[in-house]
């Protein structure tokens, strides 16, 4: 079965695949976009987070063949031509990146969080990021990165 996928504004034709493949698998193994990470494959860990028509979802739970005509945005589209996004920079500055496995999913999730809550309090951060597991940081540095990115946006607005 062949179908089309729109990823980061580019149309791709996915050819001759098994129809049960998840969006995560197709992104990584067929389209050469390995930013979304595969771990639990059951929506528990958030390391495969992408935006689907603007909504944060786990790409492992999206049937790729049923995502034709929808707009997929991955972590690969976060950085602009001038370099890292403000959230990516804040993750580096705050030391929120350790092993790095959860980082792409969290970067996508934090961009989504700050769109909806420009100045999130701690409880909002914890609730909004509850679907992204990190086994290194204990989340302290990640929350610090969110505060840093939010404050920098507010200061430059």
């Amino acid at each position, binding site marked *: 079965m062949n179908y089309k996928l729109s990823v980061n504004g580019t149309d791709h034709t996915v050819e001759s695949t098994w*129809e*049960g493949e998840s969006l995560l698998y197709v992104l990584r193994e067929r389209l050469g976009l390995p930013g979304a990470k595969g771990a639990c494959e*059951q929506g528990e860990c958030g390391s495969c987070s992408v935006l689907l028509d603007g909504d944060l*979802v786990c790409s492992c*739970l999206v049937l790729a063949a*049923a995502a034709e005509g929808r707009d997929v945005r991955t972590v690969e589209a976060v950085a602009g031509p001038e370099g890292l996004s403000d959230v990516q920079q804040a993750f580096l500055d705050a030391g929120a990146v350790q092993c790095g496995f959860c980082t792409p999913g969290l970067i996508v*999730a934090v961009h989504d969080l700050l769109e909806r809550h420009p100045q999130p309090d701690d409880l909002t951060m914890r609730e909004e990021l509850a*679907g992204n597991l990190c086994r290194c940081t204990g989340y302290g540095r990640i929350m610090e990165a969110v505060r840093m990115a939010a404050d920098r946006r507010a200061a430059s607005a």
Partner: protein
Amino acid sequence: MPVLVPETLEEACAALAARPGATLLAGGTDLMVGINAGRTRPDDVVMVGRLAELRGWVRDGDHVVLGAGVTYTECMAEPLASLSPVLAQAARSVGSPQIRNAGTLGGNLGTASPAGDGVTALVALGGTVRVRSTEGERDLDLATFVTGPRRTERRPDELIVSVRVPVADGPQEFLKLGTRNAMVIAVASVALVVEPGAVRLAMGSVGPGPVRATEAEAFAASVVDWTTGTAAAGAADEFGALAAAASRPIDDHRSSAAYRRRAIEILAKRAFLRSFSS
């Protein structure tokens, strides 16, 4: 495993009529877990989650009609959350933002997991579920729609179009017990819906489907002073005990039956105390 993505409800019904027993795909939060793990290999998949006719909700007098494709995130948003607080609370307890953005009310109802949060809230709300096939539409009673674990009154050639539930006319509570706040499947849950003169209590994860605690409901209706919305001290304890007695939990990998029964007693009591002051 052909995947069909119909563009209209009519096309979806025709696709189902041609392949009765095809697997319906809505948010994917259940089906894809099975496919990824190699446990599920559907013959045919019909994608219904994005059908325009199943999206959104409307108020219809003293009822709300919710499309089967309404997500948990949408259930949590105002003004819907105030019209149906028990549904909003149940939705908020589901998974994570990622799961709530994908999972749908129709999917939860159709999957009919005994641990389903949305379905437990819907059974407490009461009302009807509309199903549709090429032969037409049927309105079925929400209270009896789930017939067993992962079984419903939906025929294989039908899909769920919408649910019609009453607008809140009194306190509503959804309480759920699990091992952590987020990403948890209910060990036990209760959905309490109060209307003038009547109380409905549905319990999740303690039976083959949502279980109604009819004796607890009748007790509450008789013990509450409906002019003031208060109840005598001690009534909540009896309500909790009657709820626990009506639960039919089993031992499984998530909890023991004894723990679930005790959890129901406390959750039902707590829901009662939050709804009626003494």
